[in-house]
């Protein structure tokens, strides 16, 4: 067997293995997708029906469920607001931590990263009590605040990686031209790291959208999100799999759109801080 054919067989084998990995990775999502389109009989049929009559009833029942549009709006507002605030606070902080020299720099940097070690429960318990006393328990504000705290360390860490890549020449040129620090920041630095900002924004949005613990505990009837609302389909007697999967798909769709559109940015954001 010549070296060329051996290489071809090796490539086939690698592609086959990767295909198996891909099937395993995507199968649960595929399963949920098909379940959301099946009627009651088909969805739990054993052996499973690979071909079936497509029905949109499940989606109809999800969209017409009580307060669904409210919950959807809640989800969007919470994730959007927390992302915007996290960026507004985290990006300048990351810039200062990367560029400026001052005494407490290393300590603050380490503190920011080590806040990841705190288990969410440890933050949830005191805040539950605080919010209860402040009457903020069923509001979006409380959840937004929690998400900001949750995403800030990661955002700062990601942006630090991107800021490190900027050459010093940019700032030197700006200061020679007489730009103030903030002006340099807004007009010169920010446009350069717009890629990093979008990566951090996507990650913050996704983590906020997917978050369960705070959303479940701190929300009530008016601030519930569609993620927490999935519990709606589990009643005492049965689990309503059809609408449950449909609402799961609705929850997943914004994420998928994001990921497919911006996956290169996502990868960049996750890896830039680690690879020097």
């Amino acid at each position: 067997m010549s070296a060329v054919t051996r290489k071809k067989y090796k490539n086939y084998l690698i592609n086959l293995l990767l295909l198996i990995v891909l099937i395993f990775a995507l199968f649960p999502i595929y399963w949920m997708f098909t379940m959301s389109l099946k009627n009651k009989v088909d969805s739990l049929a054993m052996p499973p029906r690979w071909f079936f009559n497509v029905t949109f009833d499940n989606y109809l029942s999800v969209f017409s469920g009580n307060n669904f549009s409210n919950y959807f709006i809640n989800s969007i507002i919470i994730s959007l607001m927390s992302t915007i605030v996290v960026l507004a606070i985290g990006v300048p902080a990351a810039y200062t931590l990367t560029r400026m020299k001052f005494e407490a720099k290393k300590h603050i940097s380490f503190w920011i990263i080590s806040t990841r070690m705190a288990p969410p429960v440890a933050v949830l318990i005191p805040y539950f009590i605080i919010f209860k006393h402040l009457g903020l328990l069923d509001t979006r504000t409380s959840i937004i605040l929690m998400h900001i705290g949750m995403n800030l360390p990661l955002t700062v860490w990601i942006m630090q990686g991107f800021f490190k890549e900027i050459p010093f020449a940019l700032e030197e040129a700006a200061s020679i031209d007489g730009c103030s620090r903030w002006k340099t920041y807004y007009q010169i630095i920010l446009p350069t790291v717009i890629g990093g900002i979008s990566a951090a924004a996507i990650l913050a949005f996704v983590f906020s959208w997917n978050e369960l613990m705070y959303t479940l505990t701190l929300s009530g009837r008016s601030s519930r999100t569609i993620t927490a609302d999935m519990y709606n389909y589990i009643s005492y007697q049965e689990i309503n799999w059809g609408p449950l999967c449909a609402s799961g798909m609705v929850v997943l769709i914004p994420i998928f759109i994001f990921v497919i559109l911006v996956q290169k940015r996502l990868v960049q954001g996750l890896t830039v801080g680690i690879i020097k």
Partner: protein
Amino acid sequence: MGNPIFREKRIFIYQSILPAIFILFIITILPFFINLYNSLRDYYLANPEGSYFIGFQNYYNIIFNDPNFWKALSLNLIFVVSAVCIQFCLGIGIASLIHQNESPFSRFIQGSLMLPFAATPIAMAFIWRLMFNPSLGIFNYFFGLFNINAVTWLSQPKLAFFSLILVDTWQWTPFMMLLLLAGLKALPTEPFEAASVDGATFFQTLFHVTLPLIKPVSMIAMLFRIIDSFKTFDIIFIITRGGPGNSTETLNLYTFYKGFNHLRMGYASALSIIMLIIIIVIAQKFIKYTGINEMGVF
């Protein structure tokens, strides 16, 4: 260079960093002290008289009188170690495969593997719960095709634990793989060329060239995963709720239940503090053991 420039710089530093410091303070320092305060009290939410001071009684009870705590802790440790090891091995394997084979197909795979990682855990957890179902689930169906007996995935303690590790691996291996792939791409090619000239097999190259070279990236990726998998909540809560009995009740879940089901806020606060200390100690030991500090990351 004179005073105004220094002053302007200092103002900029304060203005840019203070909001972040403020948020971090109220998210980490403040809850810590509140937890500390509450952990020294008997704080039963349903008690109309509120809380009262009991000193270190909570801590004493947790460490000496509470077998559930020790069980939850050991479950957490086993979970973290198994999950991270499996995810690392799979991650490095898949990353090497993709790295060897640069093609549109492997780029497509890279993109699609983001989906398990980005998919909302609660949604996926429900589907996994269905797939594990003894009579209606897809796994037992496949087993049946090969004439293996149906398995009650979630009703036996050890199996339920294994199922959770499986779901966690499904969800987080792409993350590991992504980091390791980026690390692989940044490596120089000479060692690999030298290895193939010397006639090394795939596995020899893997163990003697690849692994040592990506040690910095792997160690950081593992540190992240270790810290994060201690905090795993969503999938355990949705799929087993703590498992048959309490056989999958990790420390995180145990604290959550103590606080929000049993309403013992004082006890739960003490548990949180203990959990925080444990994570910090483990992270420190890991950093020291693998020498991440010397690699100049932080």
